[in-house]
């Protein structure tokens, strides 16, 4: 009996962790859905404030499965989200600012070298990285592992290691207070690199949450 319970628990936990929203399952905006309208309105209210200033900002649209770079309300760039998961969606209803860009290994120019030196390019950007925001939010950007079982295994390992570390921390410190929210986004590797390239320190970020259809 206990073995059955354990097996079921394992299956349930794996299913809940690996399940993610499929693109286009949820309509972009169902105007007959009050919850969706309220969420879209909340995001619009925040976006109007951001679009009124000369700046670029990011909108993570979990309802449309896309990461949008915007300025003045204009969509400048769109990266499709392949899948995502969040620790607690209810906490994601605020404006965040990126604390720092993902680390980039910049090349130093050597005046003595004389010859042309390689610049950095999109290919130098990381495909998996973490973005830290203020107020506290952690976004883990993962690149798609479709057709790459080794990368899939590595990513799963990293995810589980992160969870184990967090669990160990709770056991060690006894601190069960709620942790800051986290969001995991899986995108194509070129889109992950593009995002690492584009984000800037202090960049405002809004998250639009989905509603049940």
């Amino acid at each position, binding site marked *: 009996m206990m073995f059955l*319970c354990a097996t079921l628990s394992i299956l349930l936990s794996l299913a809940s*962790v690996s399940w993610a929203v499929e693109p286009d399952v949820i309509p972009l905006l169902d105007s007959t859905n*009050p919850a969706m309208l309220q969420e879209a*309105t909340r995001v619009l209210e925040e976006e109007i404030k951001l679009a009124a200033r000369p700046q670029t900002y990011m909108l993570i649209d979990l309802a449309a499965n896309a990461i949008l770079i915007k300025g003045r*309300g204009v969509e400048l760039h769109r990266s499709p989200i392949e899948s995502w998961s969040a*620790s607690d*969606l209810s906490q994601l209803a605020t404006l965040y600012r990126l604390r720092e860009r993902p680390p980039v290994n910049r090349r130093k120019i050597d005046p*003595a070298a004389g010859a042309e030196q390689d610049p950095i390019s999109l290919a130098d950007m990381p495909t998996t990285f973490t973005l830290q925001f203020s107020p506290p939010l952690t976004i883990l950007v993962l690149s798609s592992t479709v057709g790459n079982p080794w990368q899939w295994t590595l990513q799963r390992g990293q995810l589980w290691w992160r969870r184990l570390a*967090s669990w160990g921390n709770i056991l060690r410190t006894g601190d069960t207070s709620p942790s800051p929210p986290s969001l995991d986004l899986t995108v194509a590797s070129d889109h992950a690199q593009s995002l690492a*390239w584009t984000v800037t320190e202090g960049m405002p970020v809004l998250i639009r949450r989905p509603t049940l259809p």
Partner: protein
Amino acid sequence: MTRVLLSLWSGLIGLFCVTLVQSSDLPISSVSISRPAAVDPILLHTLQAHYTMLAKQLTQLMPTQPYILVDTARNHLYVKRKDQVLLDALASTGSGTILDKPGDSKGQWIFDTPRGEFTVQSRLTHPVWVKPDWAFIEEGLKVPKSPADRLEPGVLGEYALGFGKGYFIHGTLYTRLLGKNVTHGCVRLNDDDLKSVYRLAKVGTPIMIF
């Protein structure tokens, strides 16, 4: 004995997994915010009207005149009017490299194209490059004392659009490097595209760079 050990082991694994899933900081997959069962038509109408008003408000903030869009990751410059692309040009943008400032242990130049929103502040014809300190240091040369020794005509093309802090959209002699991140922060174009941008942009035209 084996059964007891097996039960104990499976129980531990089960407890571990349940704890992992229930722990507050664990990514529980995409749970959507809930939708109420019954919909109040008055509330719905109010929400729809408010949403429409806000959507209109956002649209009014969008540029109505042509604007310049620079994609530094893919080295492209676009001139757009609303959704219409008026020009799609291959460009060169910042290399992202760094150069140490001599005599300043912590000082560095970072050759990035700035990201964000800017405006065209100046429109120049036949611009002359006033070489900054880094241009000499990068080549291993001594920084000249006379301003006249900094002038270099003919390298920026026929036009230049300034967008602040010494950054320009200008021409280049190195057209083979278009499409690559090779500049010190400026945006380079070939002669034809530069001419088109110069014609389409006025002082005040927005430049959005990402």
